[in-house]
């Protein structure tokens, strides 16, 4: 976290020669990702598509610092993640990255407002209750603040998850197929919220999706198959 940005100041994400492999059950290693370069600028919005099992979620985990690459550089908000300890990556993630999951992943023991506040608490920031309520209002659930996840509809749960991801004022929002589990009507609402919020707060957005309808909402659409050298050598 002490490292100063050295890349272009507008770059929120820069991947260079990133290779990620996994151990195979029978021995040996399986290369999942081999990306020469990928950058996203501040406030830029990008959709990432690719075949199932193609490494999209692994790529998001590398960017979030939940996984480390075998080689290469992952720079988020100017910070080189590969040089950080796990604790450092945790801190970096809490400070710079918001994450919206396909399955929402709200913590079931906590109310909607507490789920949003937890996003702040884990980032070692002071709990900004006013912002938490503002976000809940923004996603149209101010009257559901005290509701537990199991008391909310699927669409409402994803809206709370979006508010949670925005709570820490991230520089980069990673969304992993956020509309996959919601009905079409809610899907538009969810997309509107994610895209609109990122635009309003100048947050870079990388959204993984399988839906061509969703990609139409983005000016920049990247195919992982094209970014990933392993597909180019097959």
């Amino acid at each position: 976290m002490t490292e100063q940005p050295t890349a272009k100041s507008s770059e929120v994400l820069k991947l260079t020669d990133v290779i990620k492999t996994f151990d195979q059950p029978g021995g040996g290693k399986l290369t999942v990702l081999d990306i020469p370069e990928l950058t996203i600028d501040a406030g830029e919005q990008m959709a990432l598509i690719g075949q199932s099992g193609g490494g999209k979620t692994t790529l998001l985990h590398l960017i979030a610092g939940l996984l480390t690459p075998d080689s290469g550089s992952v720079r988020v908000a100017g910070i080189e993640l590969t040089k950080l300890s796990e604790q450092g990556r945790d801190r970096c993630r809490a400070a710079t990255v918001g994450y919206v999951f396909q399955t929402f992943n709200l913590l079931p023991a906590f109310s909607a407002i507490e789920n949003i506040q937890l996003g702040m608490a884990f980032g070692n920031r002071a709990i900004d209750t006013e912002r938490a309520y503002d976000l809940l209002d923004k996603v149209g659930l101010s009257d559901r603040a005290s509701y537990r996840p199991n008391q909310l509809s699927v669409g409402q749960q994803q809206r709370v998850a979006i508010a949670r991801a925005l709570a820490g004022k991230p520089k980069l929002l990673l969304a992993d197929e956020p509309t996959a589990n919601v009905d079409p009507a809610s899907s538009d609402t969810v997309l509107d919220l994610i895209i609109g919020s990122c635009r309003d707060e100048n947050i870079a957005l990388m959204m993984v999706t399988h839906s061509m309808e969703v990609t139409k909402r983005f000016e920049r659409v990247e195919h992982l198959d094209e970014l990933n050298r392993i597909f180019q050598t097959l």
Partner: protein
Amino acid sequence: MWLLRIAWRNFCYRSLSSVLTTISLALGVALVVMVLAVFGIVTEAFSRNAQVGYNLVVGPKGSALQLTLNSVYYLSQPIENLPFTEYMEFFDAPARAEMVRKYGGDPALGERDGVYYPMIAGGYAIPLALGDYLGEFRVVGTTPDFFEKLRHGPTLEEPFTMREGRALESYSDDYGYYEAVLGSRVAAHMNLAVGDTFSSTHGDPEGKGHGQKFTVVGVLAPTGTPNDRAAFVNLEGFYLQENHAKPLTGEETIEPPSEAPNDPDGAMPLTIPEREVTSILVRTGMPMMGVVLENQVNESLRSQAAAPVGEIAKLMNAIIGPLLAALLVITLITCVVAAVGVLVAIYNSMNDRRRDIAVMRALGARRGTVTGVILLESFLVALIGALSGWFLAHASIWAFSGEIEDRTGVQVGILTTSAYEWYIFPLVLILAALAGILPAASAYRTDVGTNLAA
């Protein structure tokens, strides 16, 4: 603060499992606290009763502990009896001469001081005659000195007080030699009050009843000592019960009594050769003389002297000390079992919460943070369980405090604690921390990627 809040929410979210685990821990702690409290009450009861107003108990040769148990606690069987002349050895010549005149006996007894008299100057010697029962309670033949000279209580300064009536007299115009004073528990249990009469049974609770009845003239206020469990009768009346006179050989020199009042039934006190005492409660005028007297009595052929405090200390060391050690081991095992319960409950829930842990990690929580949450949850279960168990135990003890005081004289308040209790809380918390380590380690190792994708 958030960690505690998260732990508490997890506790509430899995309320059934959490509550059952906590109850099991609370019951374990309650059991331990109650066992320790009962042990404390027993110890206290024994210890405080060993703090009697007298330094020595003198009785026939035999077990010093048995002598202490039957003379101080009215437990166990009397060893044997001593001749009355042994009791007279604690008095000076004039007092001995008066006894001869009063009861009849060898005039030579009154011509010298008793051999132990110089050592108890300023103190007293009180005879006890045991062997009869009133129901399950011991009948104790003694003199009015018992109520006038003995003291009890924490500072040994409290005289016996009567809840009802008065102390017995050597002889009264109303009841002659047959007056009795009942300990508070005896009166309550036997449903006897001042003015009532009773017959004692000979030898044991099921023994043959004596024909002559004693009249209750007083009921002692509760003392918290074994005296609450005794029926005191006039020594003279005790002697006059059938089969209580020592048979004469015909070789005794007996001067008939000249002072004793005639009983309405014409009975006269037994002569000195016919009298025996079971034991003698002795207090020396100067405490240091107690040791000298004890040695001198123990060097005699017939008698032994025992210091109740020392005998009870030996009993505590020999029996109650190991018992305490055993109880503490049981305590430890109970706490370990409870802690294992906490471990099993939390560990079993880990499968359900791996995803939550992964989500927390994805939101920026460090491994240490999620580990801390699990440990805190274990602590919460331990803390709530330990406090609930402690209150449950003390509320139960308090509910029975009246009965406990009645039976042992030990007063127990809801916040009365034993020293060992204070070890329970840190012990339970440490064990809970240990119990939390395994699930916490599991939380620490939780793979975020795998569990987010699950």
